[in-house]
């Protein structure tokens, strides 16, 4: 087994544990590269089937290509898709002009919380990775959230030998992180090996491309001429800029992501 084989095997093991343990299970699909890899892993884990719904928390500020890609892939992969928008907040005028962190909290965190409550999810699968940023580096694979989706990161249960947390009070839910142990380069190498189709925003047009995808107003492009996965891999080998450098909400203050995530952000 090579490095990617081992990563894949571990992720499949985690997905199967989640499916076995949680009656009400859903996977968050942000249309980005990481959660699209997870979609692929799920197809492998369940031999071509996707035995749980995929959830897209739509802020309505997403880049239009993402929505087109989402709808086409959902059909091709034959997956059940739940699209949810925090309409109440939008009607009240919520947007990035109200402050980036405020907007993220309302449209993404609260939107997600509404889905969890509405569908009574016990398990939510998310494509976060330890190498993305500090607070994610400290995550467990099965990470408990209380009924308000809050994360008590100072008091996490031990997690060892792939014996994950599957016991918790009713009303709480577990965030399952199947690709927590992957890094950005692993993701790209796996996309290249498995020939996974991605939204083409990742590939350069007129000398610019997206390295990380989010909402249009808060996501910046990087200078790049990479038009294939192989070229992106080559580009990443030579960069010293962080993956999420183009994500405005991270830069709001030194602890932006930690604060967001404590309240239930993905």
């Amino acid at each position: 087994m090579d490095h990617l084989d081992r990563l894949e095997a571990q992720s499949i093991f985690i997905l199967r544990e989640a499916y076995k343990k949680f009656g009400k299970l859903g996977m968050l699909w942000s249309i980005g590269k990481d959660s699209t890899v997870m979609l692929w892993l799920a197809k492998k884990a369940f031999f071509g089937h996707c035995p749980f719904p995929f959830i897209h928390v739509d802020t309505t500020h997403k880049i239009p290509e993402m929505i087109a890609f989402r709808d086409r892939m959902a059909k091709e992969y034959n997956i059940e898709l739940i699209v949810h928008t925090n309409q109440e907040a939008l009607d009240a005028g919520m947007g990035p002009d109200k402050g980036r962190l405020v907007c993220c909290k309302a449209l993404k965190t609260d939107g997600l919380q509404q889905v969890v409550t509405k569908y009574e999810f016990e398990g939510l699968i998310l494509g976060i990775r330890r190498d993305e940023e500090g607070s994610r580096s400290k995550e467990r694979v099965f990470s408990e959230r209380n009924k308000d989706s809050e994360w008590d990161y100072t008091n996490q249960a031990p997690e060892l030998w792939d014996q994950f947390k599957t016991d918790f009070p009713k009303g709480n839910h577990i965030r399952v992180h199947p690709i927590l142990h992957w890094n950005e380069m692993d993701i790209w190498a796996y996309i290249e090996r498995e020939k996974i189709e991605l939204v083409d925003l990742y590939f350069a047009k007129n000398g610019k491309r997206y390295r990380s995808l989010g909402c249009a107003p808060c996501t910046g492009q990087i200078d790049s001429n990479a038009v294939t996965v192989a070229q992106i891999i080559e580009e990443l080998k030579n960069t010293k800029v962080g993956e999420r450098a183009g994500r405005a909400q991270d830069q709001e203050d030194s602890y932006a992501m930690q604060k967001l995530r404590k309240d239930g952000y993905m």
Partner: protein
Amino acid sequence: MDIDREVLNIVVVGHVDHGKSTVIGRLLYDTKSLPEGAIDRVKRIAKEKGKPFEYAYLLDAFEEEQKQGITIDTTQLQFRTDKRDYVIIDAPGHKEFLKNMISGAASAEAALLIIDANEGIQEQSKRHGYILSLLGIQKAYVLVNKMDLIQYSEEKFNAIKQEMNEFLTSLHVYPLKYIPVSAFHGENITASSDKMPWYKGEPVLKAIDLFEKDKGLEGKPLRFPIQDVYKFDSRRIIAGRIEAGTLRAGDEILISPSNKVTKVKSIEYWVEKDKVDQISAGMSVGITVEDEFFNQRGEFISHTYDAPITSDTFKVSLFWMGKNDLVKNKEYKLKLATQEVECEIYAINKVIDATTLENLENANQAKTNDVAEVTIKTKREICFDEFRNNQNTGRFVIVDGYDVCGGGIVTGLAQERQSASKFVKQDDEIVAKCFDEYYYVLTEGGIKKIEGVPHSFNIGDVIPSTGVTYEYPADFNVVDIKTGLTAIIRKSKLQDIISLKHLAYEQSPFIDSQGAFIKIYSEEDFNKFAADLEKLQQSESSRTAAFANQWFDFMKFRQIRYLTATKSLEIEYQI
């Protein structure tokens, strides 16, 4: 990072404030593994807090940490050397965070144990040593940090080395190296320090490249715990991860504990390129079988000729992390591989204070952070292996309420207790007296031998090449004079046991099973020794002394140390 490169997980442990985060910060900094902006960001935070920049801050992602100056949770970070990629796990030193330390260390293949040269060995240094032993992490280096505070003194370094070695050896943790460093000043991190010319070993970054990854799980007896059974379409797929061994389509398999035999019909896949006819340890797979019995999660698939142990009562060593004590006559949940079963503590055989190693006999409970030897009784029979035979199927966790509160390893079924250390390869055994220690006991006026803690060394196990009163090189051979069997030790690991007759001469030194150097300096000596030994084995035993005087030099790798009285050395526990 290149994708075909090897990855090694290393955990960094040690007492609080002994410099774990500084060591890691240094490694990241010196290997240029930090993204642009990270150092600036940390400098900015340090400035905001009115503190000078420290390498340790590179790791502290959480507000609370910087307030208290401690690492709350386990952090995983990556860096690379020319040889391979590393995932480094920073484990917290504070006692309250032992559960986080264990969560981090459980996924590690190798360990760096950090000790402050100025403070010496502290409570958590010992406790962490104990945990490494329970987690089965055999590859460990001890980094004696803050050498600048003791003026880079070789003498003090040796004193710490000796004290720690004594402690760790008693736990069957045999550090492969002791490295004197100053992480803050970068001494002996990337390059050999000119402040410590007396240290002849490698600096940290070169030393970690010498850790060898475990291999060979594929060759062990097959263990395939069923994770789930799927029926999404016409196929009835048994899914799970193979924990050890190799399985082929057509193999006859045994399903335990229900004890049913069938054959593998197919190995399933989704994309065509994943189609294989053989699957092995580490893979997450799916198979169909010829006879569609009722199979369920938790059952073990093995080959018919190499089944796991099936029992409802077994002995374990465990560490307890629960808020409530571990007690008898209470229902817990035990999770081992994919099995979940109610269990109770049938007997508490021993509770060990992991710091003093003091035994509390007749204890009725284990408290948080205690290590205990207990007998567990499960509500129904489950499958497992002894930890020493198979780590993946020999360890378990205990859930109390909603949380994992304990982790442990299965040590066996029977009450047998080993009396002497041995090198073991299948039916071949050599009684190893070479790890016994010799002291001149002042109160008794004579030399006394103290036997090491009995332990069986199997092929691949690390052996204690350095004791208090002996020091063997990393490569040597141990000859059993009675049988001629020879244990081959390479890089401080038992590599093989073969008969001296079948051994080709190499330059590494020979000792007898008592630890005496055998005066073989050349191939000619080797041949003569082999001939003499054969003669000796055929003749009267009265000739043995003459043989020994001719060939043995007992003191070459040994020394005799003074001791006031023997009582202080009695060690009365066993993992």
